């Protein structure tokens, strides 16, 4: 009897697993469908024996690996919390945007309350519409300025105001600034993405100063120009000193300061060897040292001699010759206003180069020296 009870329990157990119903009462001995499992049943009965159950109920046989006593609860997947609606839907139009977007961050579609599209759609792609802000990676790539709205800038300014001082009086225009601060120091800071803020290029320091602001006399200016070489720009009157020899900006700044100081002091000095300056060393055309002066003196002397020895039409000769003594001294000739005019014209022609005005001036000066301009030719 015990064995039949167990068999019924097994059958019921199989029925539960297989999904079809088998009815067997306490008195029915076998059901045909269960025959295939006979060996299994036999084995199970031997192994675990019958289960004590009340007579009124169907018996249940539990076979390890096949049936489990009470049906095991299937592990239900935890339901995900419902995602709240995007934040922009709850935003009021009166809100403070600076507290919504306080600092720089990537574009967030759920926070930005206005509709925006980014992208390019051809023909029927995306229904012919550029992609909207939702799930748009293009919007996340580009830098945005939602943290730099006018409201933000106002707050920044208000926060920084306590560190600011008033603009000094008397420095309203650029000219005033140049007068009071003639030296311009140029340094550069390089901002790149890097774990280090050091940059080798930021060591370079440039000093710029106008020579006219250094209060140099002619000799000092000339000497300084010879010392600085091509660091001087004649068009703008700017002297530029660039230092990049030292590894640090501060060191280069100190070196440039030293250079500028030394240049000014050295230029103001006059060394003994500077007296040995020759014509070839002159920085520009000086008429008094040149051959032109000698030629002029000779010409005047020659004209004067011809005037005395030969019969010449006095109406055609220049008037100043009559006023000169027979053997004029050098100073007498040089001090003549016509000669001074000639000297200026020649000097200008050499120093400024040939152009229409200098050549015309030279022509007029020569005509006045050699001819009586007022007389008809």
């Amino acid at each position: 009897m015990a064995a039949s009870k167990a068999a019924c329990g097994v059958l019921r157990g199989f029925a539960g697993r297989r999904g079809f119903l088998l009815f067997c009462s306490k008195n029915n001995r076998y059901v045909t469908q269960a025959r295939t499992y006979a060996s299994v049943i036999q084995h199970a009965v031997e192994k675990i024996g019958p289960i004590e159950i009340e007579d009124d109920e169907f018996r249940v046989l539990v076979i390890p690996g096949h049936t489990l006593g009470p049906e095991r609860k299937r592990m239900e997947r935890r339901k995900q919390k419902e995602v709240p609606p995007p934040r922009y839907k709850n935003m009021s139009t009166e809100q403070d945007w600076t507290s919504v977007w306080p600092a720089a961050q990537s574009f967030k579609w759920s926070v930005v309350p206005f509709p925006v599209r980014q992208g390019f759609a051809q023909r029927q792609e995306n229904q012919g519409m550029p992609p909207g802000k939702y799930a748009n990676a293009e919007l996340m790539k580009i830098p945005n300025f939602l943290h730099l709205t006018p409201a933000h800038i106002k707050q920044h300014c208000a926060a920084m105001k306590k560190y600011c001082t008033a603009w000094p009086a008397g420095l309203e225009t650029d000219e005033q600034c140049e007068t009071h601060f003639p030296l311009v120091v140029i340094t550069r800071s390089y901002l790149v993405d890097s774990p280090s803020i050091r940059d080798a290029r930021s060591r370079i320091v440039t000093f710029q100063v106008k020579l006219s602001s250094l209060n140099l006399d002619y000799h000092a200016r000339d000497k300084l120009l010879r010392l600085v070489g091509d660091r001087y720009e004649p068009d703008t009157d700017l002297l530029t000193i660039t230092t990049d020899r030292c590894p640090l900006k501060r060191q280069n700044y100190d070196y440039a300061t030293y250079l500028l100081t030394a240049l000014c002091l050295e230029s103001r000095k006059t060394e003994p060897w500077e007296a040995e300056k020759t014509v070839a060393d002159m920085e520009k055309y000086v008429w008094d040292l040149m051959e032109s002066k000698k030629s002029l003196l000779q010409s005047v002397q020659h004209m004067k001699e011809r005037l005395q020895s030969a019969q010449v039409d006095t109406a055609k000769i220049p008037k100043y010759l009559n006023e000169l003594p027979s053997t004029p001294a050098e100073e007498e000739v040089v001090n003549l206003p016509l000669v001074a005019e000639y000297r200026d014209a020649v000097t200008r022609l050499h120093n400024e180069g040939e152009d229409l005005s200098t050549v015309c001036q030279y022509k007029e000066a020569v005509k006045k020296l050699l001819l009586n301009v007022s007389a008809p030719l």
Partner: protein
Amino acid sequence: MTLAVSFPKSGQLLAQLHVVSCPRLATRCISTTRVCEKNLRAGQHKITNNRSKPLTYEQAQPPYKIGVTKSWNSWNTSSLYEEKERTSETTVEDVFIRKFMLGTFHNLMLSEVIIKRRQNLIVICGLMYRGIAPRKMYFLQGYTEELLSCLLKRPVRVELQTVESRKDMIFKWI
């Protein structure tokens, strides 16, 4: 040129020799015409017969449209004029970050990994699928930030955004 002589019949050998010395083969050249050099298929997805392949916006734009209809995935100062410092390091780090993100957020990244560098800060963004619990996502975000900032020796910020469905990323079907 060596020729393997392993033909049993002399006729075949002669035929092979004829092929080798064929003037048509000898005059094969490379084309230097500009039009022929153009390779427009590189980096583009192949069209299916039934248009059943979904593409994101990023994938739909060919590489030569970078800077025109789509922008770069790496934003840094390496490509600036006369910028030579740390350009190679930046590139190698970017590759590493991408691999790290794809491995950490496995099967969750729906967009490309976008790496934006500002001063010493690295900002990593991307669109994620809501495949794991939020607390796990937050853990991975913090884990990524901490580990990457230790490895790269600079602060790293991960700005993630989730997308409800993978289908939301589809721009077109090809």
